[in-house]
């Protein structure tokens, strides 16, 4: 990407794209480039991009009261999903040409018809990601992704060849590597990039064509490496674990409270950007494997194998997060969940036990996805940080 397509460089550009989310796709639409809006990390972006669309991740907004969304969606849905829906109803994604929703959780899957009919995009599709992750489920999922590819191809009126798919597998893998290279800047103490800056950069990238997102991440990294005036001090190192965070406010709150957020197990975060897609003869094999097996979200059931102890089972389910905690030398973990999140909610006790077994103090927060809770959260976080110090 050159300066023809961006106004600034690095962090400033990330900030602009984060604040004015979707601006680049709107600009490209004037040149005939179409976009598909989506929710959740389980949507295979490689397929959407190979079909010629820009995948645009639908965001919520913690500062925006949910008003129009509640006309059609119950308040017992996950507040994050409700906020995403509310934003979409308010027209923030009306520049998009279609919608893709995966079977991620009840709050999205059980409301697919609501999204589809209310938003009324010219195209929509539900990706039926299985809950179980065995050989049969993988075969099923692969067939369902082929069905998605066929359906999207019909809408795009173009053939999505294996070569195109393979090309986007490569581009997205490269993109994920660049994100993880940004994460690596946080291994130092103090980290070179803050948690709030990371969220902005990552989220900004989710509104761009993948090549441009990769360029943006490169620029951010370059700027950070050359930054002389970073005000990041040595402070307790925190890992945030939870479902989806797409606003910088929570990270900023932790950092203002006297800590550095150095790593996460989140969407949008390492859960989403960490695992690459395996390069396979039929690209769909690698894609199906990534989105079913490698993205470690609690909505996918991981079986406790015969003969495994409870500790083995927890290690298999949460070991990757534990590895990150060690690699990034974290001092404490904040488990951050949204109200009404059944997939994560039922794991809270064991997740807490698991991190504590690694010698890490844990703060569990159940939140509403609203800036209105900042005051009470600040007190709790400060108290937690005092314990760590």
């Amino acid at each position, binding site marked *: 990407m050159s300066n023809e397509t961006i106004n600034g460089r690095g962090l400033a550009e990330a900030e602009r794209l984060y604040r004015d989310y979707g601006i680049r796709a709107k600009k490209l639409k004037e040149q005939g480039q179409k976009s598909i809006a989506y929710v959740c990390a389980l949507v295979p972006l490689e397929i959407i991009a190979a079909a010629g669309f820009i995948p645009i991740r639908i965001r919520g907004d913690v500062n925006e009261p949910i008003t129009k969304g509640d006309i*059609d969606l119950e308040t*017992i849905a996950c507040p994050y999903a409700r906020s995403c829906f509310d934003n979409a109803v308010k027209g923030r994604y009306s520049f998009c040409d279609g919608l893709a929703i995966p079977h991620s959780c009840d709050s999205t899957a059980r*409301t697919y018809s*609501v999204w589809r009919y209310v938003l009324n995009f010219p195209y929509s599709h539900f990706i039926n990601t299985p809950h*179980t992750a065995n050989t049969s*489920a993988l075969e099923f999922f692969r067939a369902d992704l082929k069905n998605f590819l066929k359906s999207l191809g019909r809408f795009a009126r173009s053939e999505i060849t294996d070569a195109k798919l393979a090309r986007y597998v490569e581009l997205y893998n490269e993109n994920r590597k660049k994100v993880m290279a940004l994460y690596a800047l946080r291994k130092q103490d103090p980290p070179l990039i803050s948690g709030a800056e990371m969220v902005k950069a990552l989220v900004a990238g989710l509104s761009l064509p993948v090549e441009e997102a990769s360029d943006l991440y490169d620029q951010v990294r370059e700027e950070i490496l050359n930054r002389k005036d970073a005000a990041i001090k040595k402070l307790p190192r925190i890992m945030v674990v939870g479902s989806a965070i797409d606003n910088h406010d929570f990270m900023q709150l932790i950092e203002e409270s006297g800590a550095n957020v150095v790593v996460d197990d989140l969407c949008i975060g390492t859960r989403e950007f960490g695992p690459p897609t395996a390069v396979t003869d039929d690209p769909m094999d690698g894609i199906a494997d990534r989105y079913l097996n490698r993205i470690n979200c*609690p909505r996918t059931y991981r079986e406790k194998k*015969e003969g495994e102890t409870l500790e083995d089972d927890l290690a298999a389910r949460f070991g990757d997060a534990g590895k990150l905690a060690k690699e990034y030398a974290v001092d404490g973990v904040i488990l951050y969940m949204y109200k009404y999140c059944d997939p994560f909610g039922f794991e809270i006790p064991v997740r807490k036990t698991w991190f504590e077994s690694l010698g890490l103090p844990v703060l569990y927060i159940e939140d509403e996805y609203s800036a209105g809770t900042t005051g009470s959260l600040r007190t709790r976080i400060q108290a937690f940080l005092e314990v760590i110090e």
Partner: protein
Amino acid sequence: MADEQDAKKRRKATEAAGKIGGMVRAAIGGTIKAKQEGKKLAYAFISSSYDEIIRAMDIVPVWTENYAGICGVKRDVNRFLERAESLGLSRSLCTYALCGIGFDQMREELGEMPPNSPWGGQARPDMMLSSGQILCDPRNKWYQASQQFMPDVPIYNVGLPWPMYEDDVDVDDVADYYIKHIVKELRGLIAFLEKQTGKKMDYDRLSGIVALAEHTWDLIWETYEMRRATPTPMDTGDAMNTMVPMVFMMGTQEAYDFYLALKAELQDKIDRKEGVIEDEKYRLLWGGGLPSWFALNDFNYFNSKGAVFPAETTYRLVEPIERLNIPNTSDPVERLAWRWLRYWTYWYDKARKRPGSEPDVERLIQYIEDYKIDGIVMHEAFSCRTWHLGLIWQLNQLKKIYRPIPVLSLGKPARRENPSLILESDIIDMSSYSEVETRSKIDAFIETLESLKSNQIA
């Protein structure tokens, strides 16, 4: 205790519904006895397409959602919910699951049933059968959470997808890979059960049980269709009882016989023109959501206002077998897979014929027509996303696309209105329920119906 006695006093219109309490009590007691006799017990979820398989393997199902519901009816749920909460589980999660997990943890800690457990308690299982569907996240996570207190109890999670309703994808285009996967998941379950019990599946026996279950499906459908009669001989208050054999005893002779008796009873009432209430003024559709199990008396309150519920979408988990167009197969496992797929996609073709429609909305329209419905009541339980998301939209969409048969009105054809009421509380957690508030909402709703009816007459 006074509350409990009130709950017990709910007046039932049918004798059949009156027998259900005893049947459930016997079934729960039966699981405890079976455990003492050394039989294999499995924690299980309703509507998971494995009822016949469990029965054919002589495994005794322990329906954990049912037990949570019983705790709700008995108004003895708080101690289990609070225990779950003390373990770090949020009260905003599915309260059936919280109740079950709290109960399990208490039982495991004590080494015996918690004192005074409703109807003797929930027996410790030998295995747990999870259910990974589009339907319900807690069914995918509940037993995994319980396993931390029972690490020796293995889980088999049955993946049971069905295709979502799409404009550009026909069910037949994708049925092949859906069926292939569902069959493999069910065969995986059979292999798991064979291992747990040390005995082989008798496929002839399974075929017989599947056939019995399907006869029962048809019988239930025919029986429930009789409720179209005016006055209706049975309403949703009773159906929340008579669903028990449908969801917890499918594939047993007892379930079949129950509906045979119910059908005869309804026929007798229809012949004698005996309705749920004497003066039936308003016919309502229970259009979605599980009821508050501790407040089933609310149905009687509706009745006292002249309102009856001839139909409900909740717990009507059958369609006529012939209309499901299940391909010929001698393999009972394949048959179960096809029945599953066809049941969940049953309303798709009908929805395609009406612009802007959707299967759930189409089902509402069908019931409104068939059962001559004046209004719809739904329940929004705060803790259950499974059955309660999308209901508001369905009502909104219903208003947008439904063109009912016009009724005669002087001067111009009148559009029939479908007023709706959404009750808010929970399935078993009483803390969110206010009887006074609920009943004043019902009163206001009845007034709306009355006013509409008066306007129509005028």
